[in-house]
Structures are given as C-alpha cells and as structure tokens.
C-alpha cells in the first residue's frame, strides 16, 4: 500500500496543471483579498483576514482538490484501463481509491500549510482560536468535497469532461459560497442558498472555529448530508470500467 501511495503521489506531483489549481488559485485569492481585507479588529483580536479570507482560502484548497483534481485522476484511470490492469493483480481498485484519497489529503495539507504560512508571514494572519474545531471542519469539508468529486468521477466519461464538470461545479458552489466578494454581495435568496451548500457552509463553519465561536449545527449538517448523498450517488453510478 505504501508503494501505491508513493506512486500516486508521484503521479500527482508530475501533473503540473493539477498542482497549479489547488495551490496557485488559493494563494492568488489570499493575496488579492488580504490587501483589501484591512487590519481592523472585528472580534477578540481577529481581523477580516482571519475570519473571512483564511476560511475561504482553505475551503478553496480542499474543494479544488476534491472536486477537480481527484475526479480527473479517477476518470483517467478508468478511461486508460489502468484500473482494469490492476484488477488482475492482488491490488484492488478500492486500494487505488484509498491511495488517491490519502494523497489528496496530503496535497490539501500542503496547500493549507502554504496558505497559512503566506498569510501569517505576509499579512499577519492569526491562527484559529479553536484549532481542533477548525481541523474537524476541514476534515468534514474534505469528505464532503471528495463525495462531490466521486459524483463527478461517476458521471464523467473522460478525464477532460471530469475536469470540465468539476470546474463548473466548483465555480457554482464557490460563487454561491462567497468566493467572489463574499456572500453578502449576492442577492438575498442566492446568499441564503449559498450558505446551505457545502462550500458556503464550510466557510461559515471554519469562520466560527477561527473565532472560537460555536459552530452552527446546520453547517455541519449540510456537510454531513453532502457526504452521505455523494457516497450513495457515487456507489450507484460509479463504474470501474
């Protein structure tokens, strides 16, 4: 299994385009948003950078890996026949999926760490008041985005279509979740919907964890339901060949 994980990591590392989106895009959003966030304290020493920008950036890291990167790899494996080739060995397609998930977690961890280092050193960002709650929300968010990614992988016939569908889904939930200027800039009904979708729910939950405040149960429920629905749909639709 370790060798499989190492090979999966090499595959991901050698996919240049696959690295730019989950690493480069969040950093771009961080830098452009940090300059306009200001240093005014909002609550308990926390600024807009801490409470709004950092949660948004971290969710972008996780969402881009789960909804764009991972489905494209699975679609590639299926289209190219790699899963079929592995099916005649003691390795199972499930092992490949597990290795992909582990590498995705590592990739997300690197993206998150990089974003936090840049935010801290470049813009004076503060760490979350409740780090364990923040980690828990990130983990749940990862599961939710991965579940959406499995649906994308299930319905996309080719790697290119997986990227296309993943990008569309990513930008829709991202836009409704406040990726472009915050949800308060959206019309009321859209902002409301965005808050219940997994991207917006994750940003709000992470923001609460960053401030050390109680996390709204509804946000956690939204992420949990996304995981459940994603798993069920993927199980029904996903084909290894």
């Amino acid at each position, binding site marked *: 299994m370790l060798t499989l994980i190492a090979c999966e990591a090499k*595959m991901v590392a050698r996919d240049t385009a696959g690295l730019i989106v989950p690493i480069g895009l969040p950093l771009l959003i961080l830098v452009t948003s940090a300059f306009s966030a200001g240093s005014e304290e909002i609550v308990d020493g926390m600024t807009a950078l801490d409470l709004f920008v950092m949660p948004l950036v971290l969710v972008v890291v996780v969402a881009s890996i789960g909804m764009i990167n991972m489905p494209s790899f699975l679609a590639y494996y299926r289209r190219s026949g790699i899963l079929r080739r592995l099916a005649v*060995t003691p390795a199972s397609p499930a092992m490949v999926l597990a290795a992909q998930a582990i590498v995705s977690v590592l990739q997300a961890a690197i993206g998150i760490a990089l974003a936090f280092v840049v935010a801290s050193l470049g813009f004076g960002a503060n760490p979350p008041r409740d780090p364990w709650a923040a980690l828990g929300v990130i983990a749940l968010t990862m599961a939710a985005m991965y579940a959406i990614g499995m649906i994308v992988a299930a319905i996309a016939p080719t790697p290119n279509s997986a990227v296309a569908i993943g990008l569309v889904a990513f930008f829709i939930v991202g836009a409704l979740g406040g990726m472009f200027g915050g949800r308060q800039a959206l019309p009321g009904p859209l902002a409301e919907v965005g808050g219940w979708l997994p991207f917006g729910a994750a940003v709000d939950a992470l923001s609460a964890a960053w401030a050390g405040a109680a996390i709204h149960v509804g946000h956690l429920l939204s992420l949990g339901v996304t995981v459940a629905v994603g798993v069920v749909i993927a199980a029904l639709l996903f084909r290894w060949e």
Partner: protein
Amino acid sequence: MISPPLQKVMVEGRDFRHARVCPPFSTFEGMSSTETAILAEGIAKSYRRTVAVADVSLRIEAGETFGLLGANGAGKTTTVEMIAGLRAPSQGRVRVLGLDPRHDRAKVRQVLGVQLQQAHLHGALRVSELVNLYRSFYPNPRSATDLLEMVGLSEQRRDTFEHLSGGQQQRLSIALALAGRPRVVILDELTTGLDPAARRRMWATIEGLKHDGVSILLVSHAMEEVERLCDRIALIDAGRIIAQDTPAGIVAQAGTDSLDEAFVALTGSELEAAE
C-alpha cells in the same frame, strides 16, 4: 454442457466426423483438480444480443503451455477475461488451480499472472517505478533487475511509460505479469507489435518459464509462435472451440500439411498475419 467425444463438424461440405472437437473429460477422470492449472467447463458470455463466447471447454494441465488460436473477434480475449476473473461467465464455470477466479479473487491473484492485450499502465511513472509498484503486490516477487533483463528493458528503467515505444510497453506489461512468480500465466497476444529480435527474446523467456514448470495459456493468432511454444492448442471460431489437440494432431485431423491450412480447413477463414 460437455461436448461428446466425437462430433460431426461440417465445413464447406467436408465432413470432419472424426475431428475431436472437445476432448472428453472422461479422459482426465481420476486426475485431481489441483493437477489442473486451468479448467473451463462450458463457459459462455453474451452481451444482450451479441454472443461473444458460445461454448468453450478446455483443461490446461500443470506445467503445460496451451495455445488459444483464432482470428480477431473469435472470442479469444473474452474467454481469457472470464478465466482471469475480469468477466463473469453467463454460464459454465472456471477454475484456476482449483479456485474460482471470481469468488476466490485474492488467492487466485497471488498465483496468476496476466498480460492483457493492451498495456494499460500509469503514463507518468518510470519503468522502474512501475516494476516496483507491481512487485509490491506480492509476498515473494522477482527482483526488478531480473524482470527488466527478462524483457530487455534494463536500459529504459528511468524512462516513463508514455515515452516507451509500443513494443517496449508490451514487454513491460509481460514483465509485470511475471512479477509475482506466478504458477499460472495468461499471455494475450504476447508478441504483437514486437520486432523479430524482441519476439525471439520473448519466446526464450516463455521457454524458460516452461522449464520452471509454469502453466501458460497463450492467446495468439501467430502460427509460428503457437507451433514453437505450445504443447497443445485449441482453435476457436465464432465463440466455440473447433479443435483441441497438439499442433501436429490438429494438422493430422484436418488432413493438411500445415497448421495454417488446418485452421483454414476447420474454420473456413484465414488467420490474419501477426503484426
């Protein structure tokens, strides 16, 4: 359904009444199933209205090299996929060393090596990385050096799979099939796409496996290859076994001078030349 010992086979009006279409399994009664490397009894595969394999029965003994010869679309690959456990037969049963490749998947995968017709491997991984990946699936694999030497890819160990030529990719696929020291090996179009030198090298590798007692199912449409390597062969046409015997036995049954002519006589069609 097991075919009777003698069956009338009419091809272009010629009666091959005495052709042994399927060997009677009574011939092998008394032999334990563990002495049989591969057993397929009346396997068939249909996709909606398409019958890919109608009725195939064959038995490959331990240490035997058995050839499955047929034209494109005859049902060779589907037969092999059912034996390898990649597809469930619509009817019939398959055993590999006495194990069901669908239900005893984990055990079968430890003793069975399969080289598929198309080499589907991770394009961005290097040859050495792929070899070590596939070796990691087995408890007692061959060394990476041995595997690469067997297929003549020692110089390409740092090349990525996508940058290998078609023949090199094929040779790597064969090496990976042998990574786990399998007791039974399925090779689908072993030398398709290989140059003559590489082809002979592969034949030498197969002869080495035979010497080691490995049971081999060789799928091919190259006459010279099956005549050289196989102890027995089966001719398959339209999803059915038409003849099953030693190469010389089939030539004698058909009353022809060569296996080529025997194939044409028994199936009524030409076999495309190997690439």
